[in-house]
């Protein structure tokens, strides 16, 4: 079931959009922002609201890489694996996180705290290597910064 708040936010998105289907990515983002991921049930409810078939909407949801169709950790770590970050040590930083968190890329830690994802070029190559911690871009990464992140410290603002 969609909550009243979700339904209202989605209707506002629809009002701003060309038509109901055009609002579907925005609507998926609204649901994902609150819930962390998009379940089969969410697809069914949203499809009904938008007037799309479930297959159509799931086809969209599974095409876009940042719509998550599985439960995610409380924090999503997106480590850039683009060409420049790769040249400047991004691979070993990703491996460092895998090792310290005990999870492979794509996976979520057992305690549900972090999901670790590689992501394509984040468009900040002059500060490589970079990553995103939820909505925050963190640049000029070092292993020490990653350890501070794992220890629960805030990452430096830009």
């Amino acid at each position, binding site marked *: 079931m969609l909550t009243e708040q979700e339904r209202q936010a989605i209707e506002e998105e629809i009002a*701003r*959009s*060309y*038509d109901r*289907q*055009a*609002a*579907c*990515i*925005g609507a*998926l*983002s609204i649901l994902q922002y609150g819930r962390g991921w998009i379940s089969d049930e969410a697809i069914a409810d949203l499809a009904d609201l938008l007037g799309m078939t479930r297959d159509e909407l799931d*086809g*969209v949801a599974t*095409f*876009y*890489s*940042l*719509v998550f169709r599985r439960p995610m950790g409380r924090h999503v770590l*997106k480590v850039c*694996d*683009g*060409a*420049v970050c*790769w*040249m*400047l*040590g991004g691979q*070993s930083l990703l491996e460092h996180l895998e090792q310290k968190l005990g999870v492979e890329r794509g996976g979520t830690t057992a305690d549900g705290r972090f999901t670790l994802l590689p*992501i*394509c*070029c*984040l*468009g*900040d*190559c*002059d*500060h*490589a290597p970079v990553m*995103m911690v939820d*909505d*925050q*871009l963190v640049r000029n990464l070092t292993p020490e910064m990653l350890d501070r992140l794992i220890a629960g410290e805030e990452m430096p603002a*830009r």
Partner: protein
Amino acid sequence: MAPVLTRNIRPGGPPTGLREYEAAGGYVALRQALTRHTPAELVAMVSEADLKGRGGAGFPMGQKWAGLPPFEQSERPRIYIANLDEMEPGTFKDRFLVEGDPHQLLEGLAISAYACQAELGYIFVRDEYVEPARVLSRALAEAEQAGYVGRNILGTDFSFELHIHMSAGRYICGEAMAILNAMEGKRAIPRTKPPYEVQSGAWGKPTVVNNVETLCCVPHIVERGPAWFKALGKAKDAGTKIYGVSGRVKRPGSFELPMGSTLRELVEEHAGGMQEGYRFRAALPGGASTMFLDSSEMEVPLEFESLKEIGCYFGTGTVIVLDDHTCPVGLVHNLQRFYSRESCGWCTPCRDGLPWIEGILAGLEEGRGEPGDLDLLRELCHHIHGNTFCALALGAVVSIESGLVKLRAEYEAHLGQSGCPWKDRH
């Protein structure tokens, strides 16, 4: 060179707000465009200025606008899309422009929409560009309140409703025909053309799609004129460019310079040359989907025309520098992992060809390379050329093809059992 696109940008500083933008002469061009020029005159102006698309393809803006059907005969609303789906590896100039001076984009978009008689517009933003989206959102609210965007702009008959559309991942969304499907809330598969988007685009309406940097040039062309814009270039192309340099250089960053500045100027003067202990091996002049230039090509003007003469693409003009400690095959392999992952899956040469290529490169890196591999790579690239539904796969193969020529020795060093000679060198 007096700054043009960067005149209001403070590197590392906050975005320029509306008052500051106006005080520096902002939105004067919009007023000029709406009150002194007809849309047809603006199309002619931009054509004469020889403004080329800075999203990667370098298509002449004036030619794109001239491809729209006559207004009286076209479906409405016409739609204008600013492409901020910047995801080409090595490219960071649009983020730089938007975070530094968001009103410049809004003004360029409003003028361009008027020229194309578009009533509805979207800024298509990749999901990960959270900060650019925030900056744009605030600027858009300011601009609407001041009457620069929205209904009856500056008291004229021209109305332009502008929205920010956040995407949800996938590189292919930035492709000009795929973006239309993305806007419609569908899988972002590219469309066959013709019809081109200017004839039948989003929701079947005439749609113009332009890169952010391209749009940022428009207010300046209107204010100072096409002749001025053309004279800014040092070689054959017009205007200034936000060049970028990244890799193991001393001062990676964004640099606004005349179009046609050379690789040597960029890498050695502006980016400070290579870091201690590293030497220049080659560079991709415009992000991942361009061809390698080597040290014999440092004096080539980096622009569309001059690079075309030597069989190269200019792409986005953000230079990826390859140093001598980095395995060239490893770099190309990284790029192919990206392209094959980002393939939308629609057409066979891309969907099946790119992973095949990626597998061969993995084999070279891991000591499973065989002499026939290099010929096979070339053959696969040849089969992909011209046989795909869009240019993503073309972008993928050009670094392989050029690398096989210019980085041949390093490729051959991977043949045989030992694999990558760089593996212990990082």
